[in-house]
């Protein structure tokens, strides 16, 4: 893992027009190809921070740097997965996956090749012609992840991508994400509510305080990769989750 920063937030503060003070002087740096999770209590401004990093929301103060260039608008170089899969219901699975390539004006042959490869990676080949309405939540979210990766962005932002899934599917999706990430090594920042999920996935976990959100802890996860769900019961894993739980409880 290189230490070179790819995405950085510098002293971001944000106050919504209705007076909600969402973020207070948040600074974070994401190292190239690292997997970072952001945890914190509900409503602490995690999603606001993610939207600002994505360029979807201009910050009240501070700035975001991608590859040392300030960004003011959404970028194709940053892929996003939202809590809801947000698939276009009039497009098939195939059509949803290829949307970013289509919008980027990629030639059809290359587009087909990439879309088929992605369908293969997320194990949904037999659903290529299915409309999203008949997919399960886990399948839809796998497509959303595939869609965010297909145009090869430098950074992947995930906003509680498994928040709407049941516990069992959620665990499977974590493993699935690890597998996909091993193949498409990107810089990832994932917002999550689940501490075990964060420890399982991340190289580093950032803890945010309640509103206004500040980063109050930055915990390295030194577990070796590749990781799997078997980790969940190992003492060092449990110790890390306890440590994180403690820092969230004492965050203020």
């Amino acid at each position: 893992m290189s230490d070179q920063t790819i995405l950085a937030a510098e002293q971001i503060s944000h106050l919504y027009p209705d007076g909600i003070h969402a973020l207070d002087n948040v600074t974070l740096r994401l190292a190239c190809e690292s997997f970072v999770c952001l945890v914190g209590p509900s409503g602490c401004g995690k999603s606001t921070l993610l939207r600002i990093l994505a360029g979807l929301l201009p910050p009240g103060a501070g700035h975001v740097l991608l590859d040392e260039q300030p960004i003011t608008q959404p970028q194709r170089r940053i892929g996003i997965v939202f809590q809801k899969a947000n698939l276009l219901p009039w497009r098939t699975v195939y059509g949803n996956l290829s949307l970013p390539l289509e919008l980027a004006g990629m030639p059809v042959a290359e587009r087909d090749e990439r879309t088929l490869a992605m369908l293969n990676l997320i194990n949904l080949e037999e659903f290529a012609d299915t409309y999203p309405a008949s997919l399960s939540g886990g399948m839809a979210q796998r497509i959303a992840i595939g869609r965010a990766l297909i145009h090869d962005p430098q950074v992947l932002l995930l906003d509680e991508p498994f928040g709407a899934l049941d516990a069992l599917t959620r665990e499977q999706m974590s493993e699935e994400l690890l597998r996909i990430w091993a193949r498409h090594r990107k810089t990832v920042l994932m917002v999550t509510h689940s501490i075990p999920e964060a420890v399982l996935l991340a190289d580093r976990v950032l803890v945010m305080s309640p509103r206004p959100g500040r980063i109050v802890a930055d915990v390295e996860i030194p577990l070796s990769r590749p990781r799997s769900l078997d980790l969940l019961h190992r003492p060092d894993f449990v110790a890390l989750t306890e440590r994180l739980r403690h820092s969230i409880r004492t965050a203020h």
Partner: protein
Amino acid sequence: MNSRVQTVDEGRPDHQTVPASSLPSTLLVAQSRPRTRWNLLLAPTVGIILLLIWEGVAQSGWYASFIVPSPVRVANRWWALAADGSLLRHTAVTLREVLTGMMVGVLAAFWLGYAIAKSRTAAYALTPYLVALQAVPIVAIAPLLIIWFGAGIASKVIICALIVFFPMLVNTVIGIRGIPPELRDLMRSLEANPFQTFWHLELPAAMPVVIGGLKVSATLSVIGAVVGEFVSASAGLGYLVNFGRGTYDTPLVIAAVFTLTALAMTLYGLAAWLEHILLDWHKAIQN
């Protein structure tokens, strides 16, 4: 702030719902009971009974035959019209008015509705006038439109366009406003340009409601053409009705009315067929 502007500025309903305006006949039948051969025979039976009653009343002698002509006489009149080509000619005139008027009205309403849905300024500036326009009884201003635009096709096209305009406008506004903001975020994050956002997001998302508007427009537009032809015309099915009334040719009036009904139902059927082939994905959501 939103509540001060009425009607067109109403919130965004779930875009998966179909507008109440489209009411296919099957909706009236409880879907839980399976169709049997008997059920399929019921409607034609009722039709035959109604025809028999009509025939009975015509033959009873209670009314003069020029007031209530028998179904057979109406059928003969219709056949005679069809045979000498005049039915086709008049139907073609009306159909052209209906389709041109629909096209003009639907396109104008779509773009104006799109502007209102996207721009608060447009919504505030235009909504009161559009509501007022809807409140004007078309029948009352039809004579004025004939004076301004002549007795030819132009005035009928305008009447048809006006009559389909409002339902189409409301449906377009609902359709465009109903697009979830997260989908807009998605398009932004993929750096979609305004045209791509329109083509890949706004148009398909609004399509179910727009086609719902098209179905209502199809029947409304036929009414518009007849209204125009009643006021002043030299051809068309509405003209035939009016002509038949003037000469007490009731078989002609009834034959023309049946043809108009068939025309409106065919246009509605075409819009429903369009819905069927374009909105495959939407059916899956509703089930």
